[in-house]
């Protein structure tokens, strides 16, 4: 466990706190993709490139797209 990995773990914890404490779903989608990016860096440091690639495409492409479409549908009324 070196300093870089400890720092990235603390970054993940901070990003997760930010995601939960952001109440507005639109802003939360952006913070959630930031959490996905921090998790990707952590997975790459843990020597898991396949998992890191999966996390970045799911967390930065799929989840924000679905959340934004849902919010567009909900706010249109």
């Amino acid at each position, binding site marked *: *466990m070196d300093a870089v990995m*400890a720092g990235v*773990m603390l970054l*993940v*914890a901070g990003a*997760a*706190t930010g*995601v*939960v404490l952001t*109440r507005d*779903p639109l802003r*939360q*989608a952006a913070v*959630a993709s930031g*959490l996905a990016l921090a*998790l990707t860096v*952590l*997975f790459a440091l*843990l*020597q*898991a*490139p*396949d*998992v890191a690639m*999966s*996390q970045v495409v*799911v967390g930065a492409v*799929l*989840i924000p797209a*679905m*959340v934004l479409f*849902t*919010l567009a*549908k*909900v706010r249109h*009324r």
Partner: protein
Amino acid sequence: MDWLPYALVVYLFGIGLYGVVTSRNLVHLAICLNVTQSSTYVLLLVVGYRDGGAAPVASASQHPPFVDPLVQSLALTDIVVGATVTALLLALAVQLHKNRGTLDPNELSAQQG
């Protein structure tokens, strides 16, 4: 500092569930559930990590020791499952908003048919 990864797992689990419990918006709830699920990805990878190990992609330059590949395949499946659960929850939120006009879980109760 070897307790830090496990502390991170418990923290992610706890703060995600706290978000689910105190949520006032179904979309916010779905994303907090995703945070809880990410604690399981971290736990799986942490359990398989080896100091000085390389990623389990063998080539001329990579040689043992490797980190554990089995938990990585489990974590890959886990990520896909998490994404599909979020998709279904968001579809449910859209339908609930159409029928009840609100996304607040506190205002949705079972007695309203």
